[in-house]
């Protein structure tokens, strides 16, 4: 499988016309690929996701999307006071394929429960969403994306606030989706993790890198995290050592 599911060509986008927040993005994610999106805070990772979703217009270039998109946003803005259970939230993933005059049937309930099971929250299915912890809520939103069963998944820092064990579980799950031919875009601050995916896309106001993780060299890292290296001594040390002294990464990160 190598058909392109989502791609951008010469994409420039932003929040005010004439002031692009992100320029010159050209990349493609094929079926069965995970693309890591790396970049410093304010680098344009979330901006890219919103442009791919069609929320932000292309100022230049274009975005081609072949299929439905499931999206797990970065800053979860969910209303914690809503009377909805974790199961209700996961079931929202079935809205698109259920016409309004039909109930969300048994099959969809089973699917939603299974998705919660896969993120390790089966036994919390009946609990109010607002009473779950931050990391658990993040996992419910990932379960909702699983229920959507869309060919394309955009995950904006899906592991922020998620504990190591759950992160490993979810990574395994995303690997299964990849094997089934989904295309995934994952924003992350974990350079080593990003390197392990099929492709890495670096952004820092503009595209700084696109290619296999192995090709992400010191120059590309500096282009991506460059200004941080100058202004933030510590961050630079980590970013640079990630490349030059891989074995020391754990001590620093």
């Amino acid at each position, binding site marked *: 499988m190598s058909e392109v599911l989502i791609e951008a060509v010469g994409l420039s986008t932003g929040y005010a016309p004439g002031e692009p927040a992100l320029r010159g993005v050209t990349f493609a994610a094929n079926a069965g690929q995970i693309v890591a999106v790396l970049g410093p805070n304010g680098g344009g990772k979330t901006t890219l996701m919103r442009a791919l*979703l*069609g*929320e932000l217009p292309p100022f230049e270039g274009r975005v081609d999307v072949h299929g*439905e*998109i*499931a*999206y*797990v*946003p970065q800053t*979860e*803005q*969910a*209303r914690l006071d*809503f*009377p*909805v*259970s974790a199961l*209700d*939230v996961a079931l*929202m*993933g079935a*809205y*698109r*394929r259920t016409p*309004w*005059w039909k109930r969300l049937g048994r099959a969809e309930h089973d699917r939603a429960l299974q998705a919660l099971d896969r993120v390790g929250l089966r036994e919390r299915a009946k609990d*109010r969403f607002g009473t779950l912890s931050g990391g658990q809520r993040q996992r419910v*939103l990932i379960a909702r994306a699983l229920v*959507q069963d*869309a060919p394309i998944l955009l995950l904006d820092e899906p592991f922020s606030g998620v504990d190591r064990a759950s992160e490993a579980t979810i990574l395994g799950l995303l690997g299964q989706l990849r094997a089934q031919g989904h295309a995934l875009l994952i924003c992350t601050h974990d350079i080593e993790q990003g390197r392990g995916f099929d492709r890495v896309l670096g952004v820092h106001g503009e595209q700084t890198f696109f290619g296999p993780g192995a090709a992400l060299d010191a120059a590309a890292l500096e282009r991506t995290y460059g200004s941080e290296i100058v202004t933030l001594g510590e961050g630079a040390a980590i970013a640079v050592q990630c490349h030059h002294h891989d074995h020391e990464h754990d001590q620093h990160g």
Partner: protein
Amino acid sequence: MLEAFDLPFMQRALVAVLLLSVAGGLLGAWVVLRRLAFFSHAVGTATFPGLVVAAPWGIAAPLAALGSALLFTAGLTRLIRDPRLGPDGATGLLVVAALALGALLASDVYPAGTGVDQLLFGTLLGLDDADLWLAAAVAAGALVLTLALGRTWLATGFEPQTARTLGVSRARGDWALLAGLAVAVVAMLPAVGALLAATLLVVPAATVRLVARSVPQLLAGSVLLGATEGVVALWFAYELDLPPGPVLALLSGVIFGVVALGQAAAARRPVPVP
């Protein structure tokens, strides 16, 4: 004890209250979930200029009120997009403008006697067939809207960022909810008037909201509580010879207070802000 409901005008009032509590409960559930209480109150008040000009211009009062309310809603959906103003700011701005316009028209342009007070407070005991049919239509409309758009309203209210990727249209849902509320408020005018329409829409649902564990519970509970409160208020008003609208507002307010206090006592935590 229930002979009050043998009287024809009381029976009409009873039917009206039951129909309006269906519309009020179903839409009210979304009002409290989507934090539209201020809008529900404002849109009733925004009918004021329309009602003032209705008689002099020879327009049926409900139509004039509806026109006024929908203009207000359309203006609001435009203003609401300005992030500097915010939804409450935009609502406040427009409702003040509507009130000022209505007051000017009522005092300077048209002589007193347009029955504004009656339209603000309603006459639950003097309804005609047309009023009842309108209430029935609105109850049916609220039911259809809730069935058709409930998932849209839930998904966008819960988390607007992802609504689109879930396949629901936020813009369409929001407009339908605001316009549906405007129509419902206008339908409630003859019975409870502009000032108390918000009572039917907000208070029963806000009360049930305190204890509901799911959205279907909230929807059904709001309708049931609204209907019960309406019937009891009618009976009280008849027995005590008081106007039913204010009795209903007072009664539902007291029940909200009791439930909120009871819940706070049970949970041993501060009284939740509605």
